[in-house]
């Protein structure tokens, strides 16, 4: 079997959302002498990317995304023994995600958190209607690389701007990337308030987080 075929088998196993299939594919790839980093990057992670696309296309659903992410984690854990310490479990980045104060909308933000988590980021979802200072506190506590700020109403949108101002005041702005989203948020709004990016939906959030952090 060529390497490409093995990578496809690994990706397909992730897309199947079955832990046993992923474990078996990883063992097989190991026995073929493929480097663990390649197994993860070109096989498992490629499969997770496809899972994200299938979610966006309405072919796979949130439980499948989580099952696939769980299966991938299992596969990665098999490879840990072959890799330098911590290399296998290293996350793509640390992200604090939440809906700003005064806004009780949860579902869209929650889907973004799930997709970021399943893509390999360490995500700290601090919920909805989150006091703005809590974003700052969590960023400090987790040494986050990025903060995701969701707002579903025009009345709560200014909370995103306020968090950016607070980051500046505390000298954190250069260390932390800011992503904004939610129905009334736009690319122009992101530019206006000095955010690093705007994401239209969950899969775009993953793409943009990777662009900025990986």
């Amino acid at each position: 079997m060529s390497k490409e075929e093995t990578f496809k088998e690994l990706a397909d196993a992730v897309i199947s959302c079955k832990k046993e299939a992923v474990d078996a594919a990883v063992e097989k790839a190991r026995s073929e002498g493929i480097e663990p980093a390649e197994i993860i990057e070109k096989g498992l992670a490629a499969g997770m990317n496809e899972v994200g696309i299938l979610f966006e296309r309405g072919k796979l659903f949130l439980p499948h995304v989580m099952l696939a992410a769980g299966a991938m984690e299992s596969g990665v854990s098999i490879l840990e023994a072959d890799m330098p310490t911590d290399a296998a479990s290293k996350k793509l980045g640390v992200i604090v995600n939440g809906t700003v104060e005064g806004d009780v909308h949860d579902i869209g933000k929650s889907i973004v958190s799930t997709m970021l988590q399943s893509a390999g980021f360490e995500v700290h979802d601090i919920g909805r209607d989150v006091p703005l200072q809590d974003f700052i506190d969590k960023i400090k506590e987790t040494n986050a690389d990025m903060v995701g700020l969701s707002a579903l109403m025009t009345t709560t949108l200014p909370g995103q701007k306020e968090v950016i101002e607070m980051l500046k005041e505390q000298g954190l702005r250069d260390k932390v990337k800011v992503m904004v989203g939610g129905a009334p948020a736009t690319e122009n709004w992101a530019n206006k308030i000095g955010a690093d990016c705007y994401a239209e939906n969950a899969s775009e959030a993953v793409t943009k987080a990777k662009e900025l952090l990986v």
Partner: protein
Amino acid sequence: MTTEYTTRMGDGQRILMTREQILADLKEGMADAADLGEIPDLSEDELDKLVDIIAMPARMVGVEPGKEVPVTHDIGTIRIDGDQGNSGVGIPSSRLVGVMMHERAFGADTMELGHIDYSYKPVKPVISNEQQTMEVCQQNTIIPLLYGAMPNLGLYYTPDGPFQNPGDLMKAFKIDEARASIEGAAKHATRDITWIMKKMMSSGTDGINFDTVGAAGDGDMYASLHAIEALRKEFPHIYIEAGMAGELTLGLHGDLQYDGKVLAGMWPHQQAPVVAKAGANIFGPVVNTNTSRSAAWNLGRAVTFVKAAVKASSIPCHVNMGMGVGGIPMFETPTIDAVSRASKAMVEVAGVDGI
């Protein structure tokens, strides 16, 4: 020099595009819808018509005489006395005044009564007030007047309701628990909506509007369909309108079915028959606007989705065309040029039965 036409971005910004650029964006938006929904492209004639509509020199355009359709209204009178959060203009007025203004000042074809929170669950503690207001409004109006709100399954999850937040459970890999939570919430929502509408029917409402069905995913749609079914069974003549929250039914549960069909992953042309089967009279397809794309791209995409839904539906389709949906820019002071063009396109190209 090539002529450029004033049009809009999905966020409402004014831009200039040539006919060729408009056509290219329309085709790209159409292709996206056709690919996602596995539905037919628009014809060349339809695309040409859309280019003509977008490039019309008038600030405001209108449908050809004889092609007018009824315009139904959601959010009730909140747009008059409400605040910025629900696009209200903050004019102090009673709901009766709001309803009568829609009928007599604006020429609305139908109207809706709703309460300021606009979700069904919080109606329960104030049901008598809602009934009383409905009675007074029905005494004074002629146009069909429905009661409307959002199913909003989110209110049944912690901290607002008795069921654990499925999003949190899912992130903790507790998938079975998350699904059980969604199922429990759906049962409660169905029960609440049915109870509320029994009361409102006894106060003379013409019917019910389900606004933003599926906003909380497939469980939200499941609850709404079962409420529609129960209401149709109990009130054979009730008017039922079901408007969706987005073009894709999000699969938060993934396995919920209605009439043997999995609800998750449904596109508008698949949603319409299920909504009709449950017993609704009018289906409201929704296609969300991408703010980073042009109005042409969004309109091409929205018209393609809605046209397929109109064709697949056995009941009238009233396309949702509020802020940020149906090819209308996502901007709370919607520009008249963009709204009127999207409105005309939906009637004349998608063939909707109403808006």
